């Protein structure tokens, strides 16, 4: 017995096998650790700084701008300083005038087009010029006058004082008017912003049959209005941030005080404060800068144009980030389950809603597996197909010169090309692309015996299934994985599919989005949240908020 074991020990192939069975998984984990560490620590990727570097507050992240010089009491000096910084712009206007009988020197500075000129004249310039009561020569105390101007002369709703030059410049460039008065170092910022904006329209990316038809717009304030109208809870909190060193984009962080887990809010705040980049154009950039795992194909923040979806997320105890200049709001944390739901699931009755959810799950599986299964069954595991089907598939593939993986890749790449082309082209031409593509894929490729007819069915089904995702981001993730799945099916058949599926599952189970496991409520097991997962139970049964978000206030009904 022992001798036999010893005989095994001296065989070199045993040792080789042992080495590989250890080195392969170990190597995989080392390589991924290395990539991940690179993404975090050594700032190999742009954006997130290591924590110690980001300790300084966001407001101090200035570049090449003059430091915060305080204003002086001299009007001309202040205006000169302003002109030095922004005076070269043709759209920055300096309007100097004399106020009241006092003939007090004053000036307003504003950006043409960003400020409501009518309001500026009616509420600021006219009252100051024509005032007879307060601004008369008897009052000479400058500070008292300053206060009374704001109290009794200027009748504008939003007023604040700034002391430093760069604050003032920032406010002017943000679309406010700055009022300078001779003899005081205080500058009044008058909120008279008026910008051209898009009307509220139905969101294009998330259409519903039943549900509200309004969508966010590019203007942050107009978008938050849509939320305020829906939540009258005083706990609804909006915190403003300015991100982007040069763009100075407004970013609003929203949550419901007393409901949302404060640790989650703190985590999001920290991550947002850590952002150090020159310009933010879209919330997608924020998403990429604050997400947990850069290498994952799965989106770790949900984006939406729908205010009802945002409200529902807030009520689940999640945090929302909205960026000025884009209609897309970011919702964190997100789970795989949430990406598979549509707001309509809650508006429809529970039976149809559950049915549609199951359908969507099925579509997700088809979109991920079908081409890979085709390859595996055609190239390796014929025995699993019913006998008559095998013969008819074989008949269809008769004369096709490529192995099934090449055939599938040709078709899938064509499909992705068509989708991309149709997306980028203007709508009328996009349809033409669809028709041409349909003919090329459906008819010509089969007749030319480049692909088999059954492949066309597979591709069509896959395409339709991948459109059934309620979230575009999740759909893209599955599209990427589908190609990887096809390749693993081509290398190892059904066994390869299973291996790759295990790989995806391991990744998903490990993935976290802002402290919440991506596969919750399945792993970790939260059976109470299952009421709203593959199926949605009646609204009367959904009495508690999801446990995974650890909301402070758990009860809904």
């Amino acid at each position: 017995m022992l001798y036999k074991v010893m005989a095994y020990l001296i065989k070199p192939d045993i040792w080789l096998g042992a080495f590989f069975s250890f080195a392969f998984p170990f190597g995989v984990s080392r390589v991924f650790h290395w990539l991940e560490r690179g993404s975090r620590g050594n700032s190999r990727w742009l954006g997130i700084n290591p924590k110690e570097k980001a300790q300084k507050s966001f407001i101090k992240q200035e570049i090449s701008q003059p430091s915060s010089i305080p204003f002086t009491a001299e009007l001309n000096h202040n205006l000169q300083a302003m002109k030095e910084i922004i005076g070269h712009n043709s759209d920055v206007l300096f309007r100097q005038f004399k106020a009241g009988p006092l003939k007090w020197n004053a000036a307003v500075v504003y950006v043409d087009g960003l400020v409501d000129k009518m309001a500026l004249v009616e509420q600021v310039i006219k009252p100051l010029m024509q005032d007879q009561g307060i601004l008369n020569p008897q009052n000479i105390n400058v500070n008292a006058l300053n206060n009374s101007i704001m109290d009794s002369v200027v009748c504008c709703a939003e007023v604040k004082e700034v002391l430093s030059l760069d604050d003032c410049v920032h406010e002017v460039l943000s679309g406010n008017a700055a009022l300078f008065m001779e003899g005081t170092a205080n500058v009044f910022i008058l909120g008279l912003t008026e910008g051209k904006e898009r009307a509220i329209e139905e969101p294009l990316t998330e259409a519903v049959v039943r549900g509200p038809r309004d969508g966010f717009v590019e203007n942050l304030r107009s978008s938050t209005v849509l939320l305020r109208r829906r939540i009258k809870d005083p706990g609804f909190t909006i915190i403003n941030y300015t991100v982007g060193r040069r763009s100075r984009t407004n970013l609003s962080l929203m949550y419901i005080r007393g409901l949302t887990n404060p640790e989650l809010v703190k985590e999001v705040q920290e991550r947002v404060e850590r952002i150090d980049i020159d310009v933010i154009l879209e919330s997608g950039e924020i998403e990429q800068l604050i997400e947990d795992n850069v290498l994952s194909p799965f989106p770790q923040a949900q984006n939406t144009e729908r205010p009802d979806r945002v409200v529902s997320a807030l009520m689940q105890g999640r945090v929302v980030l909205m960026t000025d200049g884009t209609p897309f709001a970011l919702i964190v944390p997100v789970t795989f389950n949430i990406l598979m739901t549509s707001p309509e699931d809650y508006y429809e009755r529970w039976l149809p809603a559950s049915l549609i959810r199951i359908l969507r799950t099925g579509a997700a599986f088809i979109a991920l597996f079908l081409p890979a299964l085709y390859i595996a069954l055609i190239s390796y595991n014929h025995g699993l197909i019913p006998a008559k089907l095998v013969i008819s598939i074989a008949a269809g593939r008769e004369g096709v010169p490529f192995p099934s993986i090449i055939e599938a890749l040709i078709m899938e790449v064509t499909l992705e090309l068509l989708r991309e082309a149709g997306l980028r082209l203007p709508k009328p031409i996009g349809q033409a692309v669809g028709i041409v593509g349909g003919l090329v894929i459906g008819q010509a490729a089969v007749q030319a015996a480049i692909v088999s007819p059954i492949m066309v069915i597979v591709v069509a089904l896959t395409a339709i299934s991948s459109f059934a995702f309620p979230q575009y981001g999740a759909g893209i993730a599955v599209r990427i994985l589908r190609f990887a799945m096809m390749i693993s099916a081509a290398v190892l058949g059904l066994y390869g599919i299973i291996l790759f599926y295990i790989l995806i599952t391991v990744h998903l189970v490990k993935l976290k989005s802002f402290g919440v496991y991506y596969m919750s409520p399945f792993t970790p097991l939260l059976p109470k949240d299952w009421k709203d997962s593959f199926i949605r139970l009646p609204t009367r049964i959904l009495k508690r908020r999801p446990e995974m978000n650890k909301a402070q206030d758990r009860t809904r009904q």
Partner: protein
Amino acid sequence: MRTDKTLYIYTLLLLLVFLTGCWDRKEIEEVGIVLGIGLDQSDEKESNHQSISMLHQFAVPKQFAASDTGTSQKDYINLVSEGDTVLKNIREMSTRADRPPSYEHLRIIVISQALARDIDLKRITNFVLRNTDTRRSIRVVIDEGNAKDIFEKRGISTNPALLLRALSDNYKTSLTMPSESKLGDISEKLTGKTSFIVPGVETTDAGVKSAGGAVIKGSLAKMIGWLDEEEVAGLNILKGEKRQNGIVKGTDPKSGEAIVYEIRTIKSKIKPKFKGNHISFEVKIHTVGKLREDWVDPGNAFKSELIKRAEQATEASIRESVGKTLSKMQKSLKVDVAGFGTKVRIENPRIWNKLKEDWDEEFSEMPVEVKVNVKIQEFGTKGAKNG
């Protein structure tokens, strides 16, 4: 930087995995799909061994797909090889078929009567069972004539192998066909030295026809005789096998006219009785069904008297048919294919251990008493024929 270098080496090692390529890949259109295998006795004698002639029926996929447009070309090709072992035949096959045979979709194995009587069936089925491609659920039938001929007979729209498979799966609707025999079951019974029957088929001018059952004697692993269709019906009743619409024709005791009974459910209970070393059996058959046809004049099914007569007639007919089967089993073939032995084994293992070596012979001496109970549940939508 050292760690980076080792990691590059790891990455390269991972890429090694892809060097293996797709070594098991075989595209669906590049294999020959074998639908049926036929085994015949060969005319040529090779050395002192019995030579086997083996027929492979390959599907021709293109013709399968085109079958609805009405082509006259066959959707199959039959390739025949000769050799003293099955494997040798299969080796020979790759020298004449352009595509390597794939047995994953093998539907049926046909063994000719002559071969089954001559060669140990274990040797024939051995290769197919050891082959990893094949399923244990492949149906096996025994052909009265030549397996070569039967693989040329096409069905209504199917090819010969599929026709044979469909035919062997038809047993549920007929009392005169034995249950399907799967390759796995056969192997199990051959190893256990139990006797059993395999469905028989025969070639007619019109096509293929089911023809009773071939009796395989477990201890010899060879075929020893046939049960004709009526005897198979008796056997099925004896085993109490559920058949959807088995028909039993009886004779009315009063008028002598025919009465036809259709089985709905049938149950049989074989009970061994032990008296010292003497074993006898009691078989209780209970069946419920409907009256399907009566030639009795006036046959008024509203009268319970006619129903009773019909039940009696059916009982007599069943008893006669079971008796015929039993006498064939015990007297002429001396074999137990109805599972009497299993009952003895369950009831009294000690006696069974003594008898099992030549159970078939012992069984042929044992008295069997058959009790039949027929109950007519309904007679359709017409009671009396007149009025």
